[in-house]
Structure formats: C-alpha cells, structure tokens
C-alpha cells in the first residue's frame, strides 16, 4: 500500500527487501524531499520573473542604471511607476482598458448567458452544429477578424472607439462564455427548477429566483475570465484603434521608442491583474478548463 503511494515523484525504486523494515520509511522521506525540491524549482521558475519585474518597476531610475543589478529591493521608489503613469496615453489607455473590459463582460453575459442556458437545458434542433460552430469560432485566430473588422469599422465610423474594441472582444469571449455558463447550468439540477414551477413560478421567475442564485459563482468565474481576456488582448485592440488605445495596445505601439524603465513599468502594470485574477479563481480553474473545453 505504502509502496503504491510513495514513489510517485521519483524514478522506479528498487524492490523492497523483506528483511529490512525501515527502508520504506526512509524512501518515503526521500521521496517527500524530492517532491518538495521539484516543486520549489518549478515555483522559482514561475515566480522569479514576476518578482524581478515587480522589483524593476519599483526601483528608481538610477537603480535601474546600475550594473550589476541588485536582486534585493534596497532602493524602493515609485518614481518609475509614476513616470510611466504620467506618460502620454497611459492613463487614458488604463481607463479605456477598464471600460472595454467591463463592457465586454456585460455584453458577453447578456448574450451568452441565455445561450448557455439553452444549450444546457433544451435539445433544440441544430444544437450540435451550434456547439461545433462555437468551437470553430474559438479556434479562429484574432488576427483574421481584426484586419477586416478595422475596414468595416472605418466605413461605419466605429473605428478608434471603445465600442469597436468591445465588439471584437465580445466576439472573442462569447464562445467561452457560452460554454462555461452552459456547464454551470448543467450543474444546477433540473428538479429544483421544476419544483419552482410547480409552486407557481413563471419560467422567467424560476430562472431568476432559483437557477440564477445557484449559478452565480460559476458565472462570476466566467466573467472574470472574460475581463482578463479583454485586458490581455493586444493585437485586435492595436489594429482597431489609433487614439483610443487600450493599455496593452498603447504599450505595444510605443515599445520601440520607449526607455527600458517604461517597458518594465508597463509590464508590471499588465501583470498585476493576473496575480489578483488567479488568486480569486484558483479554485475554479480546473473546473473551468476541465469541463468547458471538451
């Protein structure tokens, strides 16, 4: 029994000799240590770059000029971040990014939640092609949409507006929203809804009063996901805008002619939401990716 569970992280260990009693224990301890070593190594690889960009973004300009650079935060300063935030287009880009993110979230919920509910509850004709269609659109590269959309928006006067980016991001997020919400609704037992109907709720009431409250956590997860997708999307946003840049688009377009300190500060600002997002979402991540993609 202990043999089966201990040596998971290591190479096949030698067959346990019957006469030695303490071996499995020693092996178990060794395996635990190896396990921790592996985990710590990977954690270093994953966390060190984030630490370094945080360190760079909170170092003064003078400290960034030094060489070799110090790995310890001994001259903390907000100078770099401040200069970055005061550069042209950054504050506006930040506001645009937040706006685009929130509107994308709302729009994709308004369109996506009913569709997700329908996919989960009703066997309507053409359900399979519809789901296939969603999968197909998920696989479509952003760049394929962005360039023609830019032309269309130029003709319709939507070009270079928050709305243009919102529309693109909603189109990108919608398939995921529908798939996640449908899996959330699948988790709400049908009986509960039927019980509500028997006690006199209309279908809409049953949905709003009974199903929705149970589905809220999953839907919240889907919306945070949408927001982050929109926050991170850079190619479409840079192609669809000129002056109303979102934050990543602004950083990307001024990449070539900006000092290193500016890029570090921009990178750090872009990473911060990821830290927060994953912190709140960590319990949902496996559910989301596990159930929705199939």
């Amino acid at each position, binding site marked *: 029994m202990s*043999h*089966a569970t201990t040596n*998971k992280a*290591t*190479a*096949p260990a030698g067959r346990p000799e019957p006469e030695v009693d303490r071996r499995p224990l020693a092996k178990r301890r060794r395996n635990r240590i190896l396990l921790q070593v*592996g*985990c710590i190594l*990977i*954690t270093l*690889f994953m966390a060190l*770059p*984030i630490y370094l960009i945080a360190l*760079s973004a909170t170092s003064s300009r003078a400290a960034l000029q030094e*060489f*070799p*650079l110090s*790995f310890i935060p001994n001259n903390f300063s907000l100078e770099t971040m401040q200069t970055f935030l005061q550069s042209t287009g950054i504050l506006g880009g930040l506001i645009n990014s937040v706006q685009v993110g929130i509107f994308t979230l709302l729009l994709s919920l*308004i*369109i*996506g939640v*009913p*569709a997700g509910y*329908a996919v989960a509850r*009703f066997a309507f004709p053409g359900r399979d092609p519809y789901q296939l269609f969603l999968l197909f659109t998920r*696989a*479509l*590269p952003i*760049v*394929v*949409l962005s*360039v023609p*959309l830019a*032309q*269309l928006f130029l003709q319709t006067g939507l070009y270079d507006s928050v709305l243009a980016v919102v529309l*693109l991001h909603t*189109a990108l997020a*919608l398939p995921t929203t529908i798939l996640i919400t449908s899996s959330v609704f699948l988790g709400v037992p049908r009986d509960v809804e039927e019980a509500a109907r028997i006690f006199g709720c209309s279908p809409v009431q049953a949905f709003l009063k009974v199903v929705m409250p149970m589905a809220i956590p999953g839907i919240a997860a889907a919306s945070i996901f949408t927001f982050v997708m929109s*926050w*991170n999307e*850079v*190619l479409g946003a840079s192609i669809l805008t000129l002056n109303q840049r979102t934050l*990543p688009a602004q*950083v*990307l*377009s001024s990449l070539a002619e900006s000092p*290193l300190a500016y*890029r*570090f500060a921009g*990178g750090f600002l*872009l*990473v911060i939401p*990821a*830290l927060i997002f*994953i912190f709140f979402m*960590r319990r949902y991540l*496996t*559910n989301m990716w596990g*159930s929705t*993609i199939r």
Partner: protein
Amino acid sequence: MLLIAPSIVFMTLLFGWPMVSGILQAFGGPEGLTTANFTRMGQDPYFWSSVGNTLLLIVVMIPIQFVLALAMALLIRAKPRGSSVYFYIWAIPLAVSDLAAGLVWLTVFTDRGYLNSVLASVGLEPVSWLAYDNYASMFMAVLIAEVWRATSLVFVIVVAGLQSIPKDYEEAAGVFGAGFWDRLWHVTLPLLRPSLQTALILRTILAFQTFAVALALTGQNFPLVVGETYRWYTGLQDANVASALALVVMAVSMVTAVGYLKLLKDQSEAPR
C-alpha cells in the same frame, strides 16, 4: 430558440462578415481579384523567416510544455505540503498576456538585465542575449518566455484531467508490480488522452498567434507570422497584404486543428 438567437446573430455579424470581407480583401486589388497580395507577401524578406521562426518555435516549444506541464501536474497530485500555494503560483502565467510575458522576461535578458548581472557577479562576460546577430540566444529567450507563459494552460487542463481519473487504476497497477514509469505510460497517459488532446489543439492554435513576446523581447529581430501581420497593417499600412497574411495564419491553424482531430480520433476510437 429565442435564447440563442442573439448569440447567433452577433457571431454571424462579427465572425461571418469579417471573414468573407477578409478573404475578399486578401484577393482584392485595384483591378478586381488578384493574387498580387500573396506575391508581395511572399517576396517580403521577413515573410519566410517569420514562417520558419514560428514553426521552429512551435515544434520545440510544444513538447517541452507538455512534459513540463505533466510533471507539474503529477507533482501537484502527489499533494506536497503547500500544494495550494504552488498551484496558485504555477497558474499565474495563465492570465499573463504575451506582451506582458515578453516585458517580464526582458528584465532578465536585456543587456544590463538580471541574467547578465548574475554572470557579471560570478565573473563571466555579459552576453547580448537579444542582439540580432545572436540568433540562438534570441530564440532561447523567446522560447523560455513562451514556455513560462503558456505551460500553465496545459498544466491546468492536465490537472483537471487527472482529477477525473480514479486513483484505483494506478493503485491496481502498482499492486501488480508496475513501477512508476510503467504506471505513467500504460495507465495514466492513456486515460489522460482526452485532456492532452484538447490541450494540444488549443495550445498549437494559440502558439500560431504568438507575436508580442518576440516583439517585446527582440523588436523586429525575431519575426513571427502574426507579428508580420501587425507590421504590414500598422507599419506599412497595407491592409490587403495584412489580410493575406491573416488568411495564411487561419488556414494553417485550421489545417492543424483538423489534422490533430483526425489523427487523434482514429486512435481513440479503436479501444472503444
């Protein structure tokens, strides 16, 4: 039906319409339909190097990511002390954009960055990792940044897949004397196939879209196909060639996705 109608209308408007007009644009010119845009695209000196770079990156990166993600998922499943903290940290890059990832690793690889600081403090010569004449190190930098950023996605999918496999199978195999590698190869991996399959398709398609990492790290020195689209559109202001490039990216992604599906379907239907 009423419930899905808005989504269908919306998606048709924002997917169907641009796709049709994108195709028209790619073949469009001053005088009717033409393949001139593709010729111009092919003649651009950056085009073929960008195709080569993209393919090389994908071919090298995908295996590394899958091995690493599998190892990470198995480590997490062994439930080390602090596994929830590890899971959190390992999942963070999932929400980091490729632009941000490029900028993050720029702090490491830039000429006066942290890597060279380490080298200098142990007495070695600093290296210009991202210089245009240093192709191998440039490629390594982009590769590491991409592995860092995108392995998390595979990791999370594999963890989800592992959770759905009952431990009994492995324990049974262990009782019958299968060692760790035997159990991994003959029990766990076959059961993980659906998860690995989706992860593989998703990751490859997304990998074709990588561009900002390379842009942030190396500027134009390490062109990738989507980065070229961006350059043609914003830098050279030629929407037609940009569309042609976009179409190439789409065609390649579609072919890969269908290819994977065919390949994996043929194998997975046999045991059923």
